[in-house]
């Protein structure tokens, strides 16, 4: 599903590469934690998958597509197969829960009948029944993140990228978020989650890829957060 072949990414004006000779494969339906300290290259990894950045050297395949060969106008089609969740939720403050989720479908031109059918389904899936008309500022952090996950998942992506989704949320609420991610994963969606949260990684017992200074220092199935230390 995601294939990195000897990928190095160096940003302009920076000596050390953000990612260096990274080789890894994420299979369809996998749940992967991407761990490591700040600046270790987790975000760069996610940006490369989205083709927001181009690798300096090396090849990347996502969902069977060679990103180097993907023309600019086809990038949107790649992104329709990838959902994204962020630490800061990135909801539209002037739209309610339903409208925020529907927005993701409206802007890719889905028919209204389809939107009316799938948005309530995904609201149920993330556990926000009865809150479809709430505005984002009327929701708790955990609820806002559920909306963001619903928006990322509503188009049934093949891959879900989560960049520290529990970073702004207290541990108790985080468990709920992880349950939703797990539920999404069980539908066959590949989930890649970058995180600092050791407790969550340890409790889930999924594959862990650890980055340090842009290099993969550990890749183990059913791993925990701090094993390398």
């Amino acid at each position, binding site marked *: 599903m995601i294939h990195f072949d000897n990928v190095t990414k160096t940003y302009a004006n920076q000596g050390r590469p953000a990612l260096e000779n990274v080789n890894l494969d994420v299979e369809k339906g996998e749940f992967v934690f991407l761990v490591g300290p700040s600046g270790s290259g987790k975000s760069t990894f996610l940006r490369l998958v989205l083709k927001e950045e181009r690798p300096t050297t090396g090849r990347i395949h996502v969902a069977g597509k060679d990103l180097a060969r993907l023309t600019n*106008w086809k990038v949107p089609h790649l992104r329709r197969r990838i959902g994204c969740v962020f630490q800061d939720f990135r909801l539209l403050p002037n739209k309610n829960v339903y409208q925020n989720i529907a927005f993701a479908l*409206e802007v890719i031109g889905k028919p209204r009948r389809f939107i009316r059918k799938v948005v309530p389904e995904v609201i149920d899936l993330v556990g926000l029944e009865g809150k479809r008309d709430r505005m984002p500022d009327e929701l708790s952090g955990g609820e806002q993140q559920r909306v963001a996950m619903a928006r990322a998942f509503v188009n049934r992506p093949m891959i879900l990228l989560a960049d520290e989704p529990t970073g702004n949320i207290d541990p108790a609420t985080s468990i709920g978020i992880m349950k939703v991610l797990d539920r999404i994963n069980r539908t066959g969606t590949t989930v890649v989650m970058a995180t600092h949260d050791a407790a969550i990684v340890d409790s889930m017992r999924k594959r862990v890829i650890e980055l340090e200074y842009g290099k993969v220092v550990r890749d183990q199935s059913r791993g925990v957060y701090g094993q390398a230390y």
Partner: protein
Amino acid sequence: MRAQFVFSEVWIGLRRNLTMTIALIVVVAISLSLLGTGLLFVKQVDNTRSFWQSRVQISVYLCTNNDLGSNCAKNGAVTDAEIASIKNDLLATHDVAAGGLHFESQAEAWKQFQQEEAGQPILKYTQPDQIPSSFEVRLKNTEQDAAVVSQTVEGAPGVSQVVDNSSILNNFYKLLDGARNAVVIIAAFLLVAAILLVANTIRLSAFNRRRETSIMRLVGASNFYVQLPFLVEGMIAGLFGWLVATGLLILVKSIWLNGLHQYFPYGIQLSTADLIEVIIVAMITGLLICGSTSFLTLRRYLRV
């Protein structure tokens, strides 16, 4: 493509920076109406030119008994032989248009004079033999031929005065041309201002909606879909500006240019078709400027 979605986004965008939108509409309206006024001027000058082209361009006035002009004083009134000779000279230039030579006798000229000055005191003090007979000449090609033809008969026996109407009109043309150029130059400056304003408005709009556009890009909206609301926004402002300009142009034509015709009671009025043509040119200019500027601005600010 979901039109409703695009238009609700456009509406939000226009409302959010209302002041910029209004400024944009005003500038587009003024620049387009000035441009249109310039074009109307061009048409007016053309019409006036072609009107005179098809009419008498040179009048050759002949001597009368009491003409004190140097050429007439010694020889007295023009003779039939002189009239024939002048006619031959004129025709010999080959510049006179077919059927463009008309001899107006004193009797005819007097009748004309009586009509033009009916009720005026001057009629009482004028005798029929004071009104000169004349040759009214229409040329094949005014600009070049007028000088040649006038020189041919200037100073010939029996000729009192040669009046080149086109040289009188040239001053009038110069005035119109000058006014037209001034209007077009101002319009050009304003169009530049309009372009900058469009660019700025679109940039502000892109900035105001950066959350929306970043999410649109993230969930895989096509570039066209991301840019369309901004493009439509610019075009709508252009369209409103054009509507206002259309109103102003109709005013310019009906009040001002038509008022001009009180002083020039000739059939040189601009037609409604001329006005419509100018309005259409203004619309195309407006939409083109707003659309292409929005598009180019967006390419800078909404990169994938």
